[in-house]
C-alpha cells in the first residue's frame, strides 16, 4: 500500500518529472493511449465533487438536498475552477493534488443524451428523443460505452475509433484494445476485438505438445459444421492462442518499477502499465485500455461503501500516472473515468441513493504547461443546481439531467486520440445536436 507520506513527497515532484517525460514523448514514435476506468454500478458524483462556494450555489443547498447523506464540509478537499471552490471527497487526496498541479480536470454533469434536454421537455415527453431505458444498468452501461442511446448500438466507440485508426496499428500481432476487467461493448468494433488480459497474465496453450496434436487442434478449429456459435467459439480460441503468443513473447522485456497498490483497480492499472511498456514489441501506436472497478451501486449504506472505492480510485490513478512518467508515455496518455449513471440527490430510507442520470467525471494526464495535452486544473461543462425539483431535476428526487452528453465527452477524447473531425459524426451520431463535439479539455 502506498503511504500518504510517500505521495506527499512525490506530489511536489510531479512538475519536474513531467518535464522529463515530455522530452521523452517527443522522442517517441507517435504513440498515444487512452485509458478508460469504468466505475461499474453508477458512482455517486454528488458526494465526489461538492460545491462549497460557487457563483451558482453554496454548500448549504447541497446539504439541504442531501440531508443525512451530506458530507461534512470540513472534510472536503478544496479544488478551484476560476473563482468557484468545490470540494472533493476526503478519500481522494491524490486526485486533489493532481488537479491542483494541472494533472486532472473535472467534467461536470455529463450523461447519456440524444439532444440537449430541459426539465420541462423531459416531464412533458420522457420518451421522445430521450435515451431509452434510462436508469437501467445494462442499457446505460452500453450507451456510455457506445455513445448511442437508441438501443441499436452496433459497436463501442473504443472499438469503432480503433477501426478508423487501424493504419496506425497495421502489422500489430495483438489487439489495440486491452481489457483488464470485463469490457462490454466499448471494446468491440467492426474489426476490432479486445485482448482480455487478466491480472495474472495471458494464458499460453498447453497440451497440444506434439506436432500431431497441434495440427489436429488447428484443423478442428477451422472445421465448419454449419453452426455459427461453434464457429464463433473457434474464432475466440484462435484469437486467444494468437494473442497469448504475441503477448508472452513480448512480455519477457516488460519492466515496470513503479509500485501499485494491491487493490482490484491497482492491479489492473499495473497490468495496463506492463502492456503499455511492451507497446513497441506489440507494434501498437494507438492503444486503448479498459479497466473496471465494481461496487458503486450504493443503494444502501453509502457511507463506508463509496469511501473505500474512491480511495482505491485515487491511489491507483496516481500510481498509474507515475508509471506513465517512468515509461515516458505521460504526455501521450490520457486516463478518464466513466460510469453508467449518477445517483439521486435525495437519499433513500437505508442511507443510500438510487439510479439517476448526470454525473461528474475526471480526466487525467500531463498539463499543457509540461508538454502534455491536458488543460487541467479546471472544471468543464455546466455544474447543475443541486435542488430537488429544481430546474435541473428530471423529477423530485434529484435525478439531474445532464448538461453535457456522453457523445461530446467521448468525441473530445477520440479527436485528441486521432479521430479525424470528418469521421466524428459516423461514430458519435448525436454530435450534430450539440453545440460542440470538442469540449476543449485536451489540446
Amino acid at each position, binding site marked *: 500500500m502506498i503511504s500518504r507520506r510517500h505521495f506527499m513527497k512525490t506530489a511536489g515532484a510531479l512538475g519536474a518529472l513531467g518535464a522529463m517525460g515530455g522530452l521523452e514523448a517527443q522522442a517517441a514514435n507517435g504513440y498515444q493511449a487512452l485509458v478508460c476506468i469504468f466505475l461499474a454500478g453508477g458512482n455517486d458524483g454528488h458526494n465526489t465533487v461538492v460545491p462549497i462556494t460557487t457563483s451558482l450555489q453554496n454548500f448549504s443547498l447541497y446539504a439541504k438536498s442531501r440531508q443525512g447523506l451530506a458530507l461534512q464540509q470540513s472534510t472536503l478537499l478544496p479544488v478551484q475552477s476560476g473563482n468557484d471552490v468545490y470540494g472533493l471527497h476526503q478519500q481522494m487526496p491524490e486526485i486533489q493534488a493532481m488537479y491542483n498541479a494541472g494533472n486532472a480536470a473535472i467534467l461536470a454533469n455529463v450523461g447519456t443524451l440524444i439532444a440537449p434536454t430541459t426539465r420541462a421537455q423531459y416531464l412533458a415527453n420522457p420518451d421522445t428523443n430521450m435515451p431509452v431505458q434510462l436508469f437501467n444498468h445494462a442499457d446505460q452501461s452500453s450507451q456510455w460505452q457506445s455513445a448511442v442511446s437508441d438501443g441499436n448500438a452496433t459497436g463501442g466507440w473504443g472499438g469503432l475509433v480503433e477501426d478508423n485508426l487501424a493504419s496506425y496499428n497495421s502489422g500489430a500481432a495483438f489487439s489495440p484494445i486491452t481489457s483488464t476487467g470485463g469490457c462490454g461493448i466499448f471494446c468491440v468494433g467492426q474489426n476490432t476485438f479486445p485482448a482480455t488480459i487478466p491480472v495474472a497474465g495471458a*494464458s499460453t496453450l498447453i497440451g497440444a505438445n506434439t506436432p500431431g496434436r497441434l495440427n*489436429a487442434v488447428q484443423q*478442428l478449429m477451422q472445421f465448419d459444421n454449419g453452426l455459427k456459435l461453434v464457429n464463433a*467459439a473457434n474464432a475466440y480460441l484462435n484469437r486467444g492462442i494468437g494473442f497469448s503468443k504475441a503477448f508472452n513473447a513480448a512480455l519477457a522485456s516488460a519492466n515496470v518499477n513503479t509500485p501499485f497498490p494491491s487493490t482490484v483497480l491497482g492491479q489492473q492499472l499495473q497490468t495496463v502499465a506492463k502492456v503499455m511498456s511492451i507497446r513497441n514489441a506489440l507494434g501498437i501506436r494507438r492503444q486503448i485500455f479498459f479497466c473496471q472497478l465494481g461496487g458503486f451501486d450504493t443503494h444502501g449504506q453509502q457511507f463506508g461503501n463509496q469511501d473505500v472505492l474512491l480511495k482505491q480510485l485515487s491511489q491507483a490513478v496516481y500510481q498509474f500516472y507515475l508509471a506513465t512518467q517512468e515509461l515516458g508515455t505521460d504526455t501521450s496518455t490520457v486516463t478518464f473515468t466513466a460510469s453508467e449513471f449518477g445517483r439521486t440527490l435525495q437519499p433513500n*430510507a*437505508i442511507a443510500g441513493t438510487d439510479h439517476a442520470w448526470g454525473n461528474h467525471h475526471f480526466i487525467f494526464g500531463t498539463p499543457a504547461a509540461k508538454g502534455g495535452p491536458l488543460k487541467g486544473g479546471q472544471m468543464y461543462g455546466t455544474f447543475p443546481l443541486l435542488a430537488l425539483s429544481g430546474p435541473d431535476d428530471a423529477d423530485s428526487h434529484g435525478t439531474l439531467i445532464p448538461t453535457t452528453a456522453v457523445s461530446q465527452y467521448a468525441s473530445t477524447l477520440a479527436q485528441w486520440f486521432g479521430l479525424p473531425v470528418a469521421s466524428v459524426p459516423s461514430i458519435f451520431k448525436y454530435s450534430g445536436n450539440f453545440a460542440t463535439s470538442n469540449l476543449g479539455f485536451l489540446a
Partner: protein
Amino acid sequence: MNAKSIAWFAITLVLPVAGYGSDSTAMMSPTVSWVQPANNTTVGVGSQVVLQVAPAEPGGTIAQVLFSMSGRILGTARSAPWQITWTPTAQGNYSIAALALDSANQGASAAINITVGPAGVSTSGPKYNLTVVNGLGSGSYYPGASVNVSAVPPAGQIFQSWSGTSVPALSPASFTYTMPAGDTVLTANCMIPVTPTLSSVAPLQLPTGVFSATLTGTGFGASTVASLGGTPLAVTAFTPTTLSVSGFSSVSGPAKISVANGPAVSNPIAVQVGVANPLVSPSAARRFLEQAAFGPTPSEAAHVQAIGFQAWLNEQFSMPAVTNYAVANPAGQSGMSAYFLSNAVTNPDQLRQRVAFALSQIFVTSLMKLNWNAYMIPYQQMLMNDAFTSYRRILGDVTLSPAMGWYLDMVNNAAASPANGTAPNENYAREVMQLFSVGPKMLNADGTVQKDAAGVAVPAYNQSHVRELARVLTGWGFASKTSPGTPAWGALLVSASVDATVPMSPYPPAHDYGPKALLGSCQIPANLTISQDLNTALDCLANHPNTAPFLSKQLIQHLVKSNPSPAYVGRVAAAFTQSGGDLKAVVTAILLDQEARANDAGNADQAADGHLQEPALFLPGLIRAFAGINPTNNNFAYNVTALGEDIFNAASVFNYFSPSYVVSGTGGLLGPEFQLDTANAAVLRENLVATFFSSYSNPVMSYGPTTVDLSPFVPLAATPSTLVDALDLTLTHGTMPAPMKQILVSAVAGDTGSALHQVETCAYLILTSNYYNVWH
C-alpha cells in the same frame, strides 16, 4: 510395457491469426541432437548420468534446453555445454526427451531410450548368454539388463506361455526380461491350437458404448482372441479358464460372443447389447441428458433408453431433493462451488439441480454481498426445493428471503420520510421487474420485443412504476431470533438477533399504506395489510403478459439453446400460462418440444442451434461422460472462477452473463455464455483439459481427488477408428460428422505414444473442440 512417454510442457504456438498480421513462415527454428549418452545405453540405479545435447539455430539464439522424462522435468540447461546430470532412482526403460527453445519460444526436441538397471549394473565386466527358444532376444547381456524378448511360434502353432529362470508368471508373448547373472534359456512354449470352449459371459446385458466383460471357459491362453459379432475385443487379462475383455458397440440388439485360438473357434454365447426394446436411441438419450441433466453418464443414458423421456421426467419430478447445501460449511465464505460441482456429477436429482441452477441465474443473489455461506445456503436450498413448484411461489419465496432482502436492499426499506428527506429505496422494485418478472421491454407472446411506430422497443414500465412499487416494498425486516414472529427492525444481516433461515417479517410503522398505481394498470387500494400489499403486487407481476415469455425464453436458454425460435418460446409460454406458471409443465414443454428434440439423431443441425457450455456445466459434463468421480473436496472452485463463473458469487445481479449478450461475428445471434468466453478464457479451458488428462502411465486421470478412468478405452486404441467412435458416443452423443472423425483418426494414428497416450490425445482433441463445447 516399453511405453514411449512424451513430456508435456508449455510452449507457444505458431498459428496464423486472422486480422492481426500473419506469423512469418520464414521464422527461425532450432534443431537439437544428442551428444551423450548413446541411445539404448544401460546405466545403474543411483549412478550419475550426464545428459548432453547439441542444440543449434543458425541466425538465432538458443535460450534453454529442458530435459524431461515421462512428463517430469529433470532439469534445464541455460547455456553451453547444454547438459545436466541426472541420477535415476528406479529401474526400467525410459525415454528421455530434450526440448531446445530459442528466444522466441520456438522448440525442437529429440529423445533417446535409457535402460536403468540394478544398482551397480555397469557397462563393463562379464556378460552372460541368453538363449530364447521359439523367439527373439537371444544374445549376450550384462546382469540386470532389460531385454525385449518375443515369442515366434512355429508354423501352425500358437504361443501358450514362457518358461525359464525368473520369468514372471503369465508373461505375454512380448515382454521385457531382466537378465540374471548367469547363462539362461527362455522357452516360448507353443502348441497346436486347442479349440477353446466358452461356458459363460458376465454380464449378459452389455451396455451400449464401452463395456467390459468376463468370459469363463477352457483352453484360454496368451493368444486367445475374443470377438463380439465378428469384431475383435481387447483382452486385458487371462487365465487358462477366464478372459477379461473390453470393447465398444454402438449397435443395440442381440449379438454373439465367441473366442478363438488361431483358427480354432469356440461355441458362441448370446448376449444383449444395449437396452432391449429401447424407447429412444443411444444418441437421443445422451443428447436429452445434456439438456435435462449435467450431461449423460453411461448408466443414466441406458436408463433413459429403457423408460423414455416422459417417464424419466416423471421420475425426476417425483424425486424429492437429494442435493442438500446444508452440508457445505456454513461458517465459511467459500466452498459452495466445490459442493455444487460434486452434486452435479453425483446426485440423482439431476433435473431439479439444472432447474434450480437456472433459477439461481435469474433470481440472482451473490456471496459478493452476502459474504457468508450461512446466508446463501438457505436461499439456494429454497430454489432447489421450489424448483418444481410454481413461478408465483418462487417469486414470493425469493422476495421475502433474507438473502434477497439484503442483496437488493428491500430489508428495512421504509416509506418516504419528509422529516428525514428520504424516499423508499428503489433497488428491489426495479430489479424484480427488470430481471425477475416482466423484463424491461414489452414482449409479444412469443418473446419478441414490441416496437412502436418508430421501431423503438416499448418499455414495459417507467420510473413512476418503479417508485410506486418501491412504496409497496416497505416495512419488511429480518425475522428476529430473539423474539420469533416479530421483525428485528433495522438490524443488519450479520446481526446476532437476526434469523436468516426464515422469511422476512412485516413492520407496520415503516410501511406506506397509501394507494399505488403499478405497471399494467394494476391499482393497489389504500390500507391493505403489508402482506396483502405485497401479494397483490407480486400477483400483478406474475400475471403480466410479459412474464410467461420473459421467463420461458431464459429457461430455454439455460437448458437447451441460446436462440430459440419465437414459435418455440411461444409454445413454452403458452404452457406457462395455461398451467398457471407450473414449472413441471414449463420444463416438460421445454424439453419435449419438437425444437429441443429435432437434432437427437445429429442430422438436423441448424445454423443458430446450440449453447456454449458454461464452466459450471462443462466440468461436471466431462466427468459424468466417463462415469468419473468428483468428491466434495474437489479442486475445481479455482478453475470455474478463472474461467469466469465463480458459482454463487456473481459480480452483480446481472448474473455471470446476460441473456441478451450478442456474439460478435454471428449476425446478431445471442450467446449468453460467450460473455465469459474471452479469448483468454478459451485458452484456459483448453489448458484445464490438458492438465486433467495428462497422466501417461496411469489410465486413471486425476485432478486432486477427482478421477476419470480411461482404462476401457485403452484397448480400443489399436484401431483408431474404433477409439474415435467410442469417444464420439461418450462425449458427442455419437453424432460427430465424418470429416471431423477423420481428423481425429489421423491424429490418433499419427500419435507415436502408448495406447493410453493415444486415448488421451483423442479425448483432449474432442474436449477442447468447440463442436463439443457448444452443446447442440
